[in-house]
């Protein structure tokens, strides 16, 4: 920036080794944390989701043995409650963050982008809220 010789053609262009300037507080590491979150949650979800699919769809008759009693039996154990709760939260946040990227990639108008992101946020609030409520308030004596 403070080069001794600054010809008109290059005026305003920073020198290659110029120290980084602050961009008026608009810089944040949000996207880096989002990128990191996808990797970290992804690794955990590999275990949680593939384990869930193996138990629910493949082992011991798969989906054909699932009914209300089966779910009640599993949620009698805090282990599976925590498993399902963690899976719900991580899968929703991981999926929503992925869909946020997809929306940002393909939405052409700012209005479209805004409303798609709002719809996405609403769906996350609904599913995470409802799912958490159900896991915590499940009543095995309901029948």
């Amino acid at each position, binding site marked *: 920036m403070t080069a001794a010789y600054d010809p008109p053609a290059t005026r305003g262009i920073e020198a290659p080794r110029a120290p980084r300037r602050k961009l008026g507080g608009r810089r944040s590491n949000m996207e880096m944390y989002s990128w990191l979150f996808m990797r970290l949650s992804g690794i955990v979800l590999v275990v949680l989701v593939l384990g869930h*699919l193996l138990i629910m769809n493949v082992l011991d008759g798969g989906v054909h043995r699932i009914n*209300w009693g089966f779910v009640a039996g599993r949620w009698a154990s805090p282990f599976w409650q925590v498993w399902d709760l963690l899976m719900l939260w991580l899968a929703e946040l991981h*999926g929503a963050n992925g869909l946020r990227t997809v929306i940002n990639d393909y939405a052409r108008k700012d209005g479209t982008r805004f409303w798609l992101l709002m719809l996405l946020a609403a769906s996350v609030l609904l599913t995470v809220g409802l799912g958490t*409520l159900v896991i915590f*308030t499940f009543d095995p004596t309901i029948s």
Partner: protein
Amino acid sequence: MSQSTALPGPGPVAVPPPRRGSVYRGVEGMWSWVAHRITGVLTFFFLFAHVLDTSLVRVSPDTYDRIIETYKNPFVNLLEVGLVGAVLFHALNGIRVTLIDFWSKGTRLQRPMLWVVLAVWVVLMVPGVYFMLQHTVRVMFGGAA
């Protein structure tokens, strides 16, 4: 990919013909990215429906059981195979993407890692499909499988 501008014909390096029909030329890397996107979005939409159907355990055992019968329908059972296949690919390719980002050799080995992903996918899906469809096949074709 430093492809030389070799002349066509016999030679040490066979130059592939220019690819047409796509604006992208990323080849395997691009298609794995496309597949990762599609499987991810589909799984997210399924998750929305799945949280809602599971929430019926809070309504009554009968309501839940009636909805969960849908999952046992032969056609829906086939869709579940598709879901498991999609999630499994997304998981394996996600591990590959993570290795590309964090492993010093990841970028160089991204292509062989994709073949490993597909090989592991096939190896896991073969028994997976067998067990997932076992019941449906037995009911529909009687005694088979």
